[in-house]
């Protein structure tokens, strides 16, 4: 084994197979491959994969008859841009909370309660996220341009006075809108938010049968993560496929903004 070549990493091998290395580095890797047949076989396999994948999809790089209509929007109903406003932070509120200033301390300091709602809340939040965050044209019933109506309507259905829709602009998530949906068999609310790249979050709010409160809890399923908590008569869940620390910031911001 050549000492000079001892620093060849797997990343170098990928970069070699992908043709991403300058000439000098290529020569170094080639010398390494001469002495390391296993790595040489790996690189050969990757190169073959690359060529086959490119050949598989190359024929799709073509124009189609409807392309001009597609970009001029003539295929779409007239009001489509508005309906596309798409962001998905869904907030599920679990029930109306008699949550006045009693809970002054942060959620993380609160004692945990064992409540049956705790089991259903993250699942329902996750399901709502899976169903609605993927919707391109109808992610919500009421879009953000009617935010006041959205708050009044959902507040009425959940019997929450002065329901406010959390503002997550500081975390770079814009409101897409919201919808009514069943949470634990009762009317619940979902708010959806979206960042600039189209990544969505949802915030669910639902009624909680037992008055009580919990700390933030965390549930993860696949890549979908949920923060949830119960605050008095309401349960909340923030769900998304984003980094956990981002989601936690969103959860804390929602907690801060929801009426208590």
């Amino acid at each position, binding site marked *: 084994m050549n000492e000079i070549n001892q620093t060849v990493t797997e*990343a170098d091998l990928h970069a070699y197979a992908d043709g991403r290395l300058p000439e000098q580095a290529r020569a170094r890797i080639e010398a390494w491959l001469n002495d390391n047949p296993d790595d040489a076989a790996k690189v050969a396999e990757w190169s073959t994969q690359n060529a*086959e994948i490119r050949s*598989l999809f190359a024929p*799709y790089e073509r124009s189609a008859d409807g392309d*001009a209509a597609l*970009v001029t*929007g003539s295929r779409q109903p007239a009001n489509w841009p508005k309906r596309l406003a798409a962001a998905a932070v869904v907030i599920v509120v679990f029930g109306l909370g008699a949550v006045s200033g009693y809970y002054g301390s942060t959620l993380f300091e609160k004692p945990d309660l064992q409540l049956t709602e705790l089991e259903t809340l993250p699942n329902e939040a996750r399901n709502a996220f899976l169903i609605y*965050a993927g919707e391109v044209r109808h992610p919500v019933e009421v879009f953000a341009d009617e935010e006041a109506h959205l708050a009044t309507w959902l507040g009425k259905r959940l019997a929450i006075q002065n329901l406010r829709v959390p503002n997550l602009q500081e975390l770079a998530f814009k409101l897409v809108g919201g919808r009514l949906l069943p949470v634990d068999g009762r009317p619940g609310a979902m708010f959806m938010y979206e960042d600039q790249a*189209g990544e969505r979050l949802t915030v669910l709010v639902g009624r909680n049968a037992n008055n009580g409160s919990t700390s933030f809890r965390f549930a993860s399923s696949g890549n979908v993560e949920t923060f949830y908590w119960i605050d008095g008569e309401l349960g909340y869940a923030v769900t998304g496929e984003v980094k956990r620390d981002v989601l936690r910031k969103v959860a804390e911001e929602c907690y801060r903004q929801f009426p208590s």
Partner: protein
Amino acid sequence: MKTPGQDSFEGKILALLPSLRRYSRSLTRSDADGEDLLQDCVEKVLARRGQWRGLNLRGWVLTIMTNLYRNGRRQTGRAPFVELVSSEDIVSMDPPPDPLEHSRLEDALNSLSEQSRSVLMLVVVEGYTYQEVATALDIPIGTVMSRLSRARQRIGERMKADNVITLRRPK
């Protein structure tokens, strides 16, 4: 039907459509799914044109498409190991030289997670550097490398496993 001017936003998107079509198909399991993703992406891009900062339009659009793809896969409930589409669904003027091999490759690609698949396709099909992938998907470059590595390993395993079945244990 009116044709958008070359310098208009629509005209620029129109010029990108062939390569966007290739990328959307490389992420999906069928021609129909590829066209759906492409159309959803164009709708979204037109609706958000105000957010484009005037640089690297293609990169901006590919990132939006990748996010749409990941959102859409959630909706279908994640069935990463189901192989849905075979070579007869490929409508192409130039049929691949070895339809069987291409069909097996598609099956192997369909077994990837959407995260690995998007990284692999950005690198292999779209020619992104690893750093460009990291930036586009907002993930660390180490994550790019590990997803790329996982994708290649899995494809290799699938292709080899299929060989074993074909050669030694025909059904």
